């Protein structure tokens, strides 16, 4: 099966020239059609940056210094900007992390979903509104007709996240970047949102790159996973294999440091600081090699 998304040896630096800091150091990730791949890492691992690079939404002071991003066989980085923009929201969509700030506070929910539909699919105002209502029903929002006319502050956090999910699936994209979509939610709501994403993925047939720091969430929704640290891929494989038999010491350490409700306290092992230090010094060694123009 050919990958729908193929990120190869991606390098991203952030900051001014001469003072730039590397955030991605040659990361490669594949996502196959219809697959959910977890992109796992702690803060500073570069996982959100990788997601933003695919979407073409890197911060203004970030530059891609090397690598390619192929989507459905076409290099996104070589594509003219207007063409790439047409893909965004249509073929590649985003479920953002923060349901509180990702919706426009002064526009009604229905109008925000309808805007996506009329922009990408050319639906008329009436068609777009009708379709927006259907989408809300699909994300299990009761009385969708009433919710269409509400403002984001009038609905709960869980419902706002559902609205954002409805918007992401609105144009039947083939790839969705989900950036920590359940991190801000309570566990019971998180479970329902994960169940919903999985159901929509099956009915719409989208692939998902699921960015998260939570190994529990990865275990539940991702078939494959990639472990990122300091902008490098340390391990990837089938989720079942990686969690049961982690090969990289960092993955092993993360698993041992994750508190578990089903195990007594004595089972918890913090990540050895020496391991983190050695990973960073390896990353900095690679930076020096790259600065000297040597292959790593």
């Amino acid at each position, binding site marked *: 099966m050919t990958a729908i998304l193929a990120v190869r040896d991606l390098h991203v630096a952030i900051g001014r020239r001469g003072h730039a800091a590397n955030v991605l150091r040659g990361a490669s990730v594949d996502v196959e059609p219809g697959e959910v791949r977890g992109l796992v890492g*702690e*803060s500073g691992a570069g996982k959100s940056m990788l997601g933003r690079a695919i979407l073409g939404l890197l911060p203004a002071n970030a530059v891609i210094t090397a690598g390619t991003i192929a989507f459905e066989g076409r290099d996104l980085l070589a594509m003219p900007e207007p063409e790439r923009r047409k893909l965004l929201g249509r073929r590649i969509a985003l479920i953002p992390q923060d349901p509180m700030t990702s919706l426009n506070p002064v526009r009604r929910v229905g109008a925000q979903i309808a805007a996506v539909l009329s922009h990408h699919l050319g639906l008329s105002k009436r068609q777009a509104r009708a379709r927006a209502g259907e989408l809300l029903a699909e994300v*299990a*929002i*009761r009385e969708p007709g*009433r*919710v269409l006319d*509400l403002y984001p502050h*009038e*609905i*709960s*956090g*869980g*419902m706002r996240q559902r609205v954002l999910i409805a918007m992401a699936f609105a144009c039947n994209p083939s790839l969705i970047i989900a950036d920590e979509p359940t991190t801000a939610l*309570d*566990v*019971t*709501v*998180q*479970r*329902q949102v*994960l*169940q*919903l994403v*999985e*159901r929509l993925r099956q009915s719409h047939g989208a692939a998902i790159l699921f960015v998260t*720091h*939570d*190994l*529990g*969430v*990865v*275990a*539940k*929704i991702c078939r494959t996973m990639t472990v990122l640290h300091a902008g490098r891929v340390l391990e990837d494989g089938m*989720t*079942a294999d990686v*969690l*049961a038999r982690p090969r990289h010491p960092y993955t092993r*350490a*993360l*698993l041992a*440091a*994750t*508190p*578990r*409700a*089903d*195990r*007594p*306290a004595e089972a*918890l*092992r*913090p*990540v050895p600081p020496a391991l*983190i230090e050695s990973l960073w010094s390896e990353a900095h060694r690679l930076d020096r090699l790259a600065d000297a123009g040597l292959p790593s």
Partner: protein
Amino acid sequence: MSDILLRTAGLSFAYPERGSSPFARPAMRQVVKDVDLAVPRGSVLGLVGESGSGKTTLGRLMVRLLQPTSGSIQFDGAEIGRLGEVEMRPLRARIQMIFQDPQSSLNPRLRLGVTLTRQLKVFGRLKGRQDARDRAADLLELVGLPTGFVDRYPHELSGGQRQRAGIARALALQPDFIVADEIVSGLDVSTQAHVLLLLKELRARLGLTMVFISHDLSVVRVLCDDVAILKAGEVVESGPVERIFSSPQHEYTRSLLAAIPLPDVEPGWLDDAGPASIQHLQGSAA
């Protein structure tokens, strides 16, 4: 001396809701309802609940940052629920709180040495500048930070280090009782485990009595002896951690435990998305 350090009975808290008219008598919104809890000396009680469950309000009542609307709080055998600020003052040295976000709860303009010893100064327990530095260095050492950090500002620290500094500040007056509000929820897995084990060690070494507020049952299991599950301001179930985790009695506790995604592949975990399980969050618009 009673072996219960803190006991609440019928503890309730309500605040007036914003009414439709400024002249209407405001409706009261009950945030904490009739809470009866006992924290034995030297033990750690976990307060668990989802957002809006009233767990933070309950914690703030226990340290008397809030005054209860009704009910009682007994600290070391004495009623403190109705005490005024002046009467509370001597007790403030014995009761401390560690806040969720060390970024906003440490003064960004003060060096750690000053922040850590400020309360000692307020309570007149410092003998000059050198004593302050020594005491600050001791506190840093206690929480596993380099003593050189006395001259650092909070922004020079990582998230995990800042949370350690927050813990050190709470320990400065050698309190008997500490309420810790979601203090590890913002931390990465690799730092979180270190902070949890630090608290465990400090508790054993200093004989602390703690209330540990968290939305995360997995974290509670690591640190707490007892746990109380809150829902809409009420304690629905409480008891020893082992008992609650192995045989939860209340439906809500069971649903909380079932919703925790353990890091194991578990086919079917996502399947029972039947309408029944989705219903309660659909609710109506807030």
